């Protein structure tokens, strides 16, 4: 008996063009989602500072410049005091200044605290004054001069200089204290004198009007 050759019937494959397109779209969505997570991560490491205003077993509330922040804490949170010794939650008091390092989740708007360090906020404040103006008077007996700011001419600055003051011209070339002359326009980076009001110590001075004195040409 001769068997007839088997008939091969082609059944439609489950992956039609439309299904392939659907799969493509899903893959593209997932890739885009992952890319967004990489470029705009929901979780970022942050360091929040502030004064403790509330404490309970699961969270600490701090405030800095009138902005309160709630810090989630758990059994893994590490506490370090100002002497860099490990401490615990019980030693945190209302009014304590702290730095909280942890992970901020912008999706759930929570901050999971990993490490709490006791700090002093007074030492954090930079307290810099930057002023642009003209030198109107330079003392010949002491390292002090008076500056009239360009914008508020009634507010004179008494500025002291010391060995740490850095002098540069507008091209960042180093100068010396004697290069400063009355009438020159400068930018001064200042820190207030804690003992004398309205007196500042100059950290850096950029002399905008400095021009090097031409060296004398030799005569024949």
């Amino acid at each position, binding site marked *: 008996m001769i068997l007839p050759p088997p008939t091969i019937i082609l059944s439609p494959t489950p992956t039609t063009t439309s299904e392939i397109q659907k799969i493509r779209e899903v893959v593209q969505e997932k890739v885009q989602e992952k890319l967004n997570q990489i470029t705009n991560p929901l979780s970022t490491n942050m*360091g929040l500072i502030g004064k403790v205003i509330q404490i309970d077993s699961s969270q600490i509330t701090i405030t800095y410049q009138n902005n309160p922040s709630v810090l989630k804490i758990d059994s893994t949170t590490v506490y370090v005091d100002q002497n860099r010794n490990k401490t615990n939650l019980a030693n945190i008091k209302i009014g304590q200044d702290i730095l909280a390092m942890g992970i901020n989740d912008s999706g759930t708007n929570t901050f999971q605290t990993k490490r709490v360090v006791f700090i002093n906020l007074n030492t954090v404040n930079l307290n810099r004054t930057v002023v*642009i103006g003209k030198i109107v008077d330079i003392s010949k007996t002491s390292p002090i001069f008076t500056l009239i700011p360009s914008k508020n001419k009634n507010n004179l600055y008494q500025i002291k200089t010391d060995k740490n003051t850095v002098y540069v011209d507008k091209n960042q070339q180093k100068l010396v204290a004697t290069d400063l002359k009355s009438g020159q326009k400068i930018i001064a980076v200042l820190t207030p004198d804690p003992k004398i009001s309205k007196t500042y110590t100059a950290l850096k001075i950029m002399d905008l009007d400095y021009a090097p004195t031409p060296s004398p040409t030799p005569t024949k």
Partner: protein
Amino acid sequence: MVSSNVPMFKELLLAVILGALLGFGLTGGFVALKNSQKNTPITPSATVKPAVTTVTPQPSENPANALNTNNHQITIESPQNESLVANSQVAIKGFTSPGSYLIISTPSKTYLTSADNAGNFNTNIDIDTGVNQIQVDSIDSQDDQATAQFIITYSTTKI
């Protein structure tokens, strides 16, 4: 005698009238020629400089031309305020008025730089271990100032 003077007077009068007519004619022709030259368009050659347009600022009517420089601002694009970084060198990126002087103050250093012609800046600074308050002051060409402050914490502790 009288009869001989009359023709001479006529000739003199005629000469004066002719002279006047000739003078008026020449003057009129000259003026007409000048006017026709004024109306002729001049094609500028390649070396002709374009006319300079002077715009008078009108602060109250046209804010775009106003000399009110209180709009001077500074924006810090990165780093984000309260960032926690594991590297002591941080790039400060942002924008302000073109060409402004920039003074970046950290707890231990002061950097002086300037914004480019588009107002952008990007400066690497060194920060201290722990909390750093950073202050960026911008001073524009009118001596107006703008200030931005933010906090960066540098720690190598694994979070």
